[in-house]
């Protein structure tokens, strides 16, 4: 790796790297993202190396370990290039066969192919898998093309070209105008127009300014930022350097969750490589522009995703937000102008500069030519998880409908169950019901539906999910994650959770729903930061779309979805029970009785509804019945 002193040296190096990249080279692409690592891609990689060596193929066939491909559900994922054959769930013992058959003889191994859950057809090529081919993988697609630890890989697919051009042209105002025209809005959830933010920061007074990357992806159920940082860290870094040059900052920070050790490691590596090449540091490409980058690991606090709390945390303080009556672009980190954007926002920047605003604005909704708030442009990466068949990370154009995402890409609901709702926007978002499935996904329409974009979590829930339980879950999360500074959030959320927990435990009473609504309004109005102000959303949307479930809990003492333990009971279906005694043995509370080969029964008094028996039963004979086991049983209201 050589130190590049000017634009021409960069260009020469890049040209060389592009030429040396042979699109027809035989390459085994193996996903090494956190998901595939968890399902065992590391031993697979070792097996590949070993086999290639033993065949003497190490020079002819390349092994490229990449970041996340998105289809984490089916990991470990392998693509054999140049044909693009996709194998899922690959194990080390499959490797000799793969090398012998597919790599050497171009034969397909049927049993490793992906089976479409909708059509039950086997699919050979990655490009034909509906999970992939319905997406628009502008940002995320490069993950499969590069090894995240090699800056050369990134440069060979056009990386750092936008930075080099920006520095050579030396016209920050032009960059701002481009970002503004592109209609790019903050991918962290708020959707603030990025160009407007950059412009304010550039104009703000102060001889020291900062750029900051928010990688404290704390929304439960969202992990797109993680995979972007692990799969293509240089794209984020490049965006940040361009942003720093544009707003006039020389110091950058990235705040990464400590739960993402691989992302931290790979980003540090990316910075070091960029330093060695002279793309970070003093006098970048001879432009006179200096830039230094710092990495901070988060301490584990959801509230640090809020910009002012994040900045307090960067200063080594507790992550308490402060009132933002003076904007962070004017007075942020160390009271100096600070431009903070999300991981995905930064990664969009080089893309827009390379491909142009016209190209970018063709994707998405609305019209941003006059007003940057006028629409949602580009793509958004969502983590499509929960009770959907194909779980993983999906990148879709803004404006795609929820139905298309859940059923087209996600392949519908698992186990043939019925779709109930989709939760977006994390704890600040809401649950969107089936009747709104045709909602095109963009910032404004999600907000209108009572939810929000958030950092891109999409959790699909089916008929077996209790919406009151979901609301209680989020409020419990928020209660634990509130910083505790202001009264509405600390006390208000605590009380909202108290009421919801009571309802789930069968202590709900008349007036609870109204009190929840009253609290929601005051918490929204009065909280210090946006996390507090949006915290009632999970309650308000479930109340709006699933009020009957609340009423069933309170009035009928019944959990229709069969989740809330106090309001359900278990029963063994005598018809299908074979009397195998598996459940009897596994029950931790000795609530199941019965003779061998005769239907067993559950004693509802003893049963703690832990679900182990359901897990154990091979005949699907254990049923969850909504309602208390004895309708006459009335609860003493202790409250």
């Amino acid at each position: 790796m050589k130190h590049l002193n000017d634009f021409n040296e960069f260009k020469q190096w890049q040209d060389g790297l592009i030429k040396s990249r042979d699109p027809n080279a035989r390459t085994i692409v193996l996903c090494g993202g956190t998901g595939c690592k968890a399902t065992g891609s590391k031993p697979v990689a070792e097996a590949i190396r070993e086999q290639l060596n033993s065949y003497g193929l190490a020079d002819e066939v390349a092994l490229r370990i990449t970041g996340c491909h998105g289809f984490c559900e089916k990991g470990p994922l392998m693509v054999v290039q140049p044909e693009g054959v996709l194998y899922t769930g690959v194990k080390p013992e499959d490797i000799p066969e793969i090398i012998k058959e597919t790599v050497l003889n171009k034969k397909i191994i049927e049993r490793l192919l992906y089976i479409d859950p909708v059509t039950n057809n086997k699919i050979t090529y990655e490009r034909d898998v509906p999970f992939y081919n319905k997406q628009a993988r502008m940002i995320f697609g490069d993950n499969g093309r590069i090894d995240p630890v090699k800056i050369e890989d990134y440069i060979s697919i056009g990386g750092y070209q936008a930075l080099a051009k920006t520095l050579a042209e030396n016209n920050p105002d032009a960059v701002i105008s481009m970002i503004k025209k592109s209609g790019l809005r903050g991918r962290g959830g708020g959707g603030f127009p990025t160009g407007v933010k950059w412009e304010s920061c550039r104009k703000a007074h102060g001889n020291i300014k900062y750029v900051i990357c928010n990688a404290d992806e704390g929304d439960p159920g969202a992990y797109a930022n993680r995979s972007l940082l692990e799969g293509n860290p240089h794209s984020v870094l490049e965006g940040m350097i361009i942003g720093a040059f544009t707003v006039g900052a020389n110091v950058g920070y990235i705040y990464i969750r400590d739960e993402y050790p691989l992302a931290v490691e790979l980003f540090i590596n990316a910075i070091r490589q960029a330093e060695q090449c002279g793309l970070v540091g003093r006098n970048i490409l001879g432009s006179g522009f200096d830039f230094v980058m710092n990495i901070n690991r988060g301490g584990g606090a959801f509230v640090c995703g809020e910009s002012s709390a994040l900045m307090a945390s960067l200063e080594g303080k507790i992550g308490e937000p402060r009132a933002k009556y003076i904007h962070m672009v004017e007075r942020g980190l160390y009271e100096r102008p600070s431009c903070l954007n999300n991981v995905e926002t930064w990664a969009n920047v080089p893309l827009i500069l390379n491909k142009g605003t016209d190209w970018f604005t063709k994707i998405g909704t609305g019209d941003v030519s006059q007003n940057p708030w006028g629409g949602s442009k580009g793509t958004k990466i969502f983590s499509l998880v929960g009770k959907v068949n194909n779980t993983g990370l999906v990148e879709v154009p803004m404006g795609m409908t929820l139905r298309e995402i859940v059923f087209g890409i996600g392949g519908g609901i698992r186990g043939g169950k019925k779709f109930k709702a989709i939760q977006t926007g994390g704890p600040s978002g809401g649950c969107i019901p089936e009747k709104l499935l045709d909602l095109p996904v963009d910032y404004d329409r999600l907000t209108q539906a009572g939810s929000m974009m958030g950092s891109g979590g999409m959790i699909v829930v089916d008929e077996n999910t209790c919406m009151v339980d979901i609301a209680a879950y989020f409020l419990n999360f928020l209660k634990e994650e509130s910083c505790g500074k202001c009264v509405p959030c600390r006390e208000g959320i605590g009380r909202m959770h108290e009421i919801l927990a009571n309802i789930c435990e069968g202590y709900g009473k008349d007036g609870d729903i109204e009190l929840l609504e009253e609290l929601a309004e005051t918490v929204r109005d009065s909280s210090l930061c946006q996390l507090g102000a949006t915290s009632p959303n999970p309650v308000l949307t479930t109340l709006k779309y699933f009020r009957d479930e609340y009423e069933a809990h309170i009035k009928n003492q019944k959990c229709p979805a069969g989740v809330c333990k106090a309001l359900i009971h278990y029963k063994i279906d005598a018809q299908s029970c074979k009397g195998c005694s598996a459940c009897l043995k596994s029950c931790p509370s000795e609530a199941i009785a019965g003779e061998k080969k005769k239907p067993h029964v559950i004693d509802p008094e003893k049963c703690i509804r832990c679900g182990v028996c359901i897990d154990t039963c091979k005949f699907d004979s254990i049923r969850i019945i909504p309602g208390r086991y004895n309708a006459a049983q009335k609860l003493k209201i202790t409250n």
Partner: protein
Amino acid sequence: MINLLINNQKVQIEDNKTVLDACQKAGIKIPTLCHHKELTGYGSCRLCQVEVAQKNKSRIAVSCLFPASEGLQVQTHTPRVEKNRKLLIELLLARSPEAKILQKMADDYKIIKPRFRLKSEKCILCGMCVRVCNEVLGINAIGFAGRGTSKHIEIPFKDVPENCLGCGACTYVCPTGAIQMETEARQRWAQYLESGARKCRFSRMGLIPHKICPNAFQCQRCEVDQRLEDTYGTHPAFIARPAAEQLPMQVDQVEMIPDYLYTHSHIWVKPLGKRFRIGIDDFAARFIGKVDSITPQDSFRPDRPVWELASGKRTLNMYVPFAGRTMEMNPLVKFVPSLAGKDPYQQGWIYTISAENNTEALNALMSADKAIQVVHKHSDRLRTQTDKALGATLPDGAAGMLGDVPNRLTDEEWQTLTKEFFR
């Protein structure tokens, strides 16, 4: 001055004030539980919320933090605001049913009984005790611990507060009486101090000369103590404000940090364990202008420079009056040398160093008080020179006097002064 409309009534107030200041000036009563005029705004109780309208957009804002601005329209008691206040008081009352101040507010808002399960917390987490101990006393004996619903006020490790002055300012500002000077704790604390240190709280705050406490810190029973408190009419901490001594000082527009040590040639030194952190002072930063590069040295002596700074074609060698080695250069400054001048005391430090002999090194340095005299002398000298260069005498203290120094001096003048200031 700023003009704003509060409840359709014209109010005029000085710059840099909050909406709450303006309301109080206009005699409009707004409930609040975490605001104190001697402390910085915190905005935690949210009771002082009002509706503000700007450019046809109306929104809720907390008045204790919202800056009063020209033409701002404020409504302090709209139904929406009052409804929120009432529920917030109800929430607080459920937390601390015994607090007199909340009971009174609840009466005002006609809350008969909170609809929530009652707790029995005395503290409402307004943070005034923490702020007074930090901002006014500069002691930081008490602080917050935990977060969310388990956030609370605590002395670290529930220990005897080693540095507490026993001044009682925290009990003075506490709105609910949650913090008390406990007799037992006080005696424990009195034992903890060495007998020689049993100074009266007033002399500990520097308000009266040395006085030993004869009373085991039972201040309410001390005649001297009570008489003094009556004389001030407020808590003596607000008169003494010992924290002010820790703030950066301005000397002829040059900023100096009280805790740091200095050389005679405009380098600051901060002892860190066995090592020292060093950087240039604000005077040097203004003298050199934009730092373009720093040439580091591995070792240094009184006659061998510690680094060379360059700005354009000008270079400046700087010295420390003892011998030592450079341990590590600040990674930020290595890549962005201009930080050394833009943020000289914080992010712009240049090295950590180790001295050959720590005692000698410390003896060769001076405190901020002495350094201020040097800065004063050098500023005078510089002013004479730059005024001459301008061909006019500017009035004393004119703004921008030390700004743009490099451009006001010829290379020759700059070189001459370099020898005077930096050797």
